[in-house]
C-alpha cells in the first residue's frame, strides 16, 4: 500500500484486548503448554502426591491430636500461671490493634484483613467445639475454641477500619504506639509485685511457649536494628578508632554461633559482675540474642548504604545538609528500603533461632513440646506435637514474610 502524501490519518485509539481464560485455558497455558511443561507438571504432582498422601492420611486418621489440643496453653505460654492468662490475651489484643492500625494506614488490601479478623471473631462467637478422640481412642472429648477469639477478631477488624479511614493521623501516631507497646507488654506479662492485686508478679522463669519465642526475637530485632544502623554508620566513619571498634564488635559477634553466645551470657556474665548483682536469666539471654541481631543487622544495613550512588551524597552536600541531616533524610531511607528483603530474611531466621533457648533452660515452644512428649499421659505423640510446632513456626514465618512483601510494595520497590 502506498504511503499517503500530505495528510496523515490518525488511527482511532482502541482499548487493550481483555484477556479472559476459562479454567481449562489457564491450566493449558500455565501447566501444559509444551512437552517439558507437561513433564514437569506430572513430576511435581507426583512428588506432591507421594509426600502429601501419607501425611494427610496419618493426620486425619491415625494421629492423636488430643495431646496437642489439651496442651495448647503449655505450647503457647509455657507454665505461665493459668489464672493470669487474661494478661497475655490483653497483650494479644493490643498487638492486634497495632497491627490492624498499621495495616489499615499503610497497606491497600483492607478487605482481606477485615475478612480474616471477622472470621476469627465469628469463630469465637459461635459455640463451636472441636471434637477429638482421647488418648485411648475410646471416647470423644469436646473442646471449645477460646472465647478470646471474639475480641481478637473484633479489635483487629475495627483497627483496620480506623487505620484506613484515619490514615493521615494514624500514620503519624502508630509508630509511637509500637514503641510504647514494648514496655506496656512487658508490664502486662511481668506484673508489678507479688502483692499487687491486679498484676501480681510472674517471674521470668515461668514465661514460656510461643510467647517467649516471640518476645525474645522481636525485642532482639527491634533493639538490634538501631544498634546495627549505628554500627554500620560507625564502620564507615572517617575516624579510625570508631571504625576499628565497630568492625571488631561485628566480626567478634559473628565469629561464634548463637548457641555459644547464649551459653556465654548465662555462664560468663555473672563472672564479670559482683556477686550481689544477679541478672535475670531471661535478660542475659535477651542481651545475647540482641547483640547477635545487631551484628547481623549492621552488615545488612552496610550493604544498603553501599548501594546508594555517590551522586546522592554529593547532592545532599551541595544543598548544605549536615551529615546528620543527610543520613536521616537521604541516606538511611534509601538504604533501609533497599534491604527490606534481606532484613525480612534475618527476622525469619532469628524468630526460629530462639528455639535455642531450650538449651539454656528456658521453656520456649519447642522445649514445651518436648516436655509434653515425655509426659507419660501423652506417650507416643511425638509426631503430632512436632508437626504442630512446625505448623506454628511456619505460620509465624509466613506472617513475617508476608508483611515484608507488603512493606516492600508500599515503599514502591521495583517501581521507583
Amino acid at each position, binding site marked *: 500500500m502506498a504511503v499517503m502524501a500530505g495528510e496523515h490519518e490518525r488511527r482511532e485509539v482502541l482499548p487493550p484486548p481483555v484477556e479472559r481464560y476459562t479454567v481449562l485455558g489457564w491450566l493449558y497455558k500455565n501447566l501444559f503448554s509444551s512437552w517439558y511443561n507437561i513433564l514437569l507438571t506430572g513430576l511435581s504432582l507426583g512428588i506432591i502426591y507421594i509426600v502429601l498422601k501419607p501425611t494427610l492420611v496419618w493426620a486425619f486418621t491415625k494421629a492423636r491430636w488430643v495431646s496437642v489440643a489439651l496442651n495448647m496453653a503449655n505450647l503457647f505460654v509455657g507454665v505461665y500461671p493459668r489464672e493470669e492468662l487474661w494478661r497475655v490475651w490483653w497483650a494479644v489484643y493490643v498487638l492486634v490493634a497495632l497491627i490492624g492500625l498499621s495495616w489499615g494506614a499503610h497497606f491497600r488490601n483492607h478487605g482481606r484483613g477485615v475478612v480474616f479478623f471477622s472470621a476469627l471473631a465469628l469463630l469465637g462467637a459461635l459455640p463451636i467445639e472441636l471434637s477429638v478422640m482421647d488418648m485411648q481412642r475410646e471416647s470423644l472429648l469436646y473442646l471449645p475454641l477460646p472465647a478470646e477469639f471474639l475480641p481478637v477478631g473484633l479489635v483487629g477488624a475495627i483497627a483496620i477500619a480506623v487505620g484506613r479511614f484515619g490514615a493521615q493521623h494514624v500514620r503519624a501516631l502508630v509508630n509511637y504506639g509500637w514503641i510504647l507497646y514494648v514496655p506496656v507488654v512487658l508490664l502486662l506479662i511481668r506484673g508489678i509485685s507479688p502483692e499487687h492485686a491486679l498484676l501480681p508478679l510472674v517471674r521470668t522463669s515461668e514465661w514460656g511457649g510461643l510467647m517467649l519465642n516471640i518476645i525474645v526475637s522481636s525485642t532482639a530485632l527491634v533493639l538490634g536494628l538501631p544498634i546495627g544502623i549505628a554500627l554500620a554508620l560507625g564502620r564507615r566513619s572517617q575516624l579510625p578508632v570508631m571504625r576499628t571498634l565497630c568492625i571488631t564488635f561485628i566480626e567478634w559477634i559473628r565469629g561464634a554461633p548463637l548457641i555459644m553466645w547464649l551459653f556465654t551470657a548465662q555462664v560468663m556474665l555473672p563472672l564479670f559482675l559482683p556477686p550481689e548483682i544477679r541478672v535475670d536469666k531471661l535478660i542475659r539471654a535477651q542481651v545475647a540474642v540482641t547483640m547477635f541481631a545487631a551484628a547481623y543487622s549492621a552488615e545488612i544495613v552496610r550493604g544498603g548504604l553501599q548501594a546508594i550512588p555517590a551522586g546522592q551524597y554529593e547532592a545532599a552536600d551541595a*544543598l*548544605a545538609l549536615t551529615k546528620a541531616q543527610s543520613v536521616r533524610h537521604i541516606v538511611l531511607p534509601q538504604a533501609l528500603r533497599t534491604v527490606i528483603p534481606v532484613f525480612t530474611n534475618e527476622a525469619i531466621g532469628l524468630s526460629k533461632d530462639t528455639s535455642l533457648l531450650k538449651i539454656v533452660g528456658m521453656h520456649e515452644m519447642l522445649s514445651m513440646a518436648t516436655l509434653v512428649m515425655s509426659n507419660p499421659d501423652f506417650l507416643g505423640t511425638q509426631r503430632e506435637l512436632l508437626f504442630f510446632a512446625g505448623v506454628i513456626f511456619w505460620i509465624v514465618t509466613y506472617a513475617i514474610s508476608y508483611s515484608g512483601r507488603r512493606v516492600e510494595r508500599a*515503599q514502591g520497590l521495583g517501581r521507583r
Partner: protein
Amino acid sequence: MSEQQLVESNGDEPIIIARDVHKWFGQFHALRGIDMEVQKGEKIVIFGPSGSGKSTFIRTINRLEEHQRGQIIVDGIELTHDVKNIAAIRQEIGMVFQSFNLFPHLTVLRNVTLAPLQVRRRSKEDAEKAAMQLLERVGIPEQAEKYPGQLSGGQQQRVAIARALAMQPKIMLFDEPTSALDPEMIAEVLDVMTELAESGMTMLVVTHEMGFAREVCDRMVFFDEGQVVEEGTPEQIFENPQNDRTKLFLSQILH
C-alpha cells in the same frame, strides 16, 4: 518572586576569587594553578576537552572536591577545612549535576522543600509555597506530587534546578547539565537556564552547548590539561581565538 536581582551594593569585589588553585588525584595533577575571578551577576561558560579539569574546578568551589594548594574565596568567605565556612559557602551556592541526583524516595515537592526546611528552617507552608513558585518558574508545577522516577530526563533536570534555587543561592554551578539529555529535552532545560541568566543570577556553567554560550554568557573560559588556556567574550572566542589549542578544539566541536 525570589530570584536574585543584580545588586551592586558591595562595590566591585568579585563574588568568587580563585588564586593559584592546584588539585591532585593521587599522582595525577588535575588542576594546575587556576586563577579566576567572577563578578556578581556574571555568567561564565567553561568549556574544553574531557579530563581537562573543568568539572573538578567547579566542584572545588563548593568543596565537593578539596583543593590542595591555592585560595578560593566565595562571597568574602575563604574555603578552608573549617566546617562552618564550608557550610556557609554551600548555602550560597546551588549546584546542578549531569546525572540530576534527585532523591528517588521523595516526591518532587519534597525534593525541593527538603533543604529549605532543614537548613534554612523555614516553615512548611512557606517552603511549599516557594517550591511551587519555583516549579512554575521551571515549567512543571503539575508534577509536584510525582516521584523523580516517573518524570522524563528534561523534567528531572528542571526539578534539580528548582531544588538548587530553593535555597536562594547567590551563585549557581552547572556541571554539564544537558549532557545526559536528548535533543528535545536539552532545549527545555536551556530555556530555563537562559531565563535564570536574564534574571541576574551569577552562573558558572560547564557545557558543550555552544549556542547557549554564544547567546547568554558574558565570558567564556577554555580549559585544557588543568589550565586556563584562554578566556574572553563569546565574540572574541568564536571569531578570534588566539591560542592554537582553542582553535583546534573549536574546529572540532563547531562543524
